[in-house]
């Protein structure tokens, strides 16, 4: 049986399958439930300075089993209330990563400092927030903002910091490189793609907020492209996110360059058992493919890292 344990910017994980932020992450019992179901680690809902209700419903729209659009509006109990949930999850043995969101570097740093005291093994920065400094678009789409925020956080906390990159950009690798310069121990990619659904009978957007974020199988190709480009650009480990629901999906991300992955929407369509199933299948698939350890497969689809000879150059900008 292939070894699934990975080290991620200094964090030891029993397997590379992390619960993505925003899914099952508001309560400590749910975090613990994902851990018990086999996740290698669990990431909290993104936590802010104050308690937020989020947007009114409808907050989700589904597309068969291949996509999900959401605009939750970052509901969260606030940083003062939330540590009790982390404590509850840790009491049940979970490896917890704390996710935070803020509107500027100072707020990110304050939140990270607070959450770092709760026993989390790392802090993930949600760098695609709606309330942004800069130009009124997402806080995470300008490399200079990203670098400044990550630096502000890494100079405050000693824990590994993970920068979560938006795909709503022309240059994801540039954002990852900025995070690396800022001192990030790892980058995760991707968050959701900006999307919209309209109900033609009601003549209005389905989601109360209007615009939302697309996740699920539909975005897997986009996530893979981001991870591929980021892997070619930065040295820090990459966490692949987007549309993963099988061991094969995990291996695509791993061969594209991911050392760990996050799984979100698959919990909706397949239930929390998806973690145990993928972990089991993953060992088997690695055995078949001749890898003794998951870590040996990282980046192997890249020409320079173990891809079989004779490959056409697998890089370059997009096409059509």
């Amino acid at each position, binding site marked *: 049986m292939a070894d699934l344990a990975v080290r991620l910017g200094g964090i030891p994980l029993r397997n590379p399958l992390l619960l993505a932020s925003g899914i099952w992450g508001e*309560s400590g019992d*749910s975090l613990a439930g994902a851990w018990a179901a086999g996740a290698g680690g669990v990431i909290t809902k993104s936590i802010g300075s104050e308690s937020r209700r989020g947007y009114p*419903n409808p907050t*989700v729209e*589904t597309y068969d089993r291949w996509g999900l659009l959401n605009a939750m509006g970052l509901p969260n*109990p*606030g940083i003062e209330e939330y540590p009790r949930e982390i404590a509850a999850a840790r009491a049940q043995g979970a490896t917890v990563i704390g996710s935070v969101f803020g509107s500027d570097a100072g707020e990110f740093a304050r939140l990270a400092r607070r959450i770092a005291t709760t026993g989390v093994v790392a802090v993930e920065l949600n760098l695609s927030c709606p309330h942004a400094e800069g130009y009124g678009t997402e806080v995470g789409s300008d490399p200079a903002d990203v670098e400044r925020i990550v630096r502000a956080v890494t100079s405050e906390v000693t824990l590994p910091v993970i920068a979560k990159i938006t795909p709503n950009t022309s240059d994801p690798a540039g954002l990852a490189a900025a995070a690396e310069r800022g001192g990030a121990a790892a980058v995760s990619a991707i968050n959701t793609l900006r999307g919209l659904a309209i109900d033609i009978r009601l003549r209005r957007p389905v989601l109360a907020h209007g615009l939302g974020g697309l996740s699920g199988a539909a975005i897997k190709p986009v996530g893979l492209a981001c991870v591929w480009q980021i892997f070619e650009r930065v040295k820090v480990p990459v966490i692949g996110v987007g549309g993963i629901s099988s061991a094969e999906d995990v291996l695509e991300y791993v061969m594209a360059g991911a050392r760990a992955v996050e799984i979100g*929407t698959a919990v*909706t369509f397949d*239930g929390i058992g998806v973690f145990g199933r993928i972990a089991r299948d993953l060992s088997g698939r690695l055995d078949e493919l001749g890898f003794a350890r998951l870590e040996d497969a990282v980046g192997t689809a890249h020409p320079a890292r173990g891809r079989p000879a004779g490959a056409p150059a697998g890089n370059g900008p997009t096409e059509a």
Partner: protein
Amino acid sequence: MRTVVPVTERTEETPSTVTLRFPFEPAAAPGQFVMVWVPGADELPMSLSYTVGRSKGITVKTMGDTSARIQAIRPGDLLGIRGPYGNRFDLSARRLLVVAGGSGAAVLAPAAELARAGGAEVAVALGAVRASELLFADRFRAMGARVDVATDDGSEGAKGYVTAVVERQLRAERFDAVWTCGPEVMMRKVVDLARPRGIPVYCSLERHMKCALGMCDACAFGPYHVCVDGPVFGSDRLAAVADFGRFHRDPSGRRVPF
């Protein structure tokens, strides 16, 4: 699946409660709920109070802004409906006690109807603030259930909480199971009354809901998510959840006492 349907029928059940009927194809079972989108307002979880056939229904009590908007809906107006979601009442008990408080009768009435149709004996304990707010008393009687009533002001039946009625019923008769829906503190009381007698209680719970897909964690309830693991919980599962009847979570996910 999500669909937009016109309301075909509107019935005022009590001064604060209205039933809306609409065409909705997917099969549904009593206990299940739908997410009801009131265009321009909010989307709320609502139990199906009519589950059989093409014409489904919900029965809505005015609580706040959105439920008040639902009251104002007239036949021909459009609603967005997705679902049905959640689990269902187990219909195997032969001697049933049904305990409804407030709008709780909305989900219990169609379940009791099916149980009666399957030959079960059904006793009902029905509570409300006053006589005019007793929901579905006639519907329960029409299905051949024995109905005992309690009102807070004593305007009909026993004065006081319905749980006092339940206590008497449990003492007087043997039941295979109790179904209940209403304020959670009431349901907790019902569980406490039935447990010493070894009678399983099935509670239909309410938690704040957003996705209804077991994802967003809004409806977290101990190790469960009410939207997919519930809304109907047996007393065995409830025993493991310390929050039952004590805490719920507000829309931000903060744990707050009832």
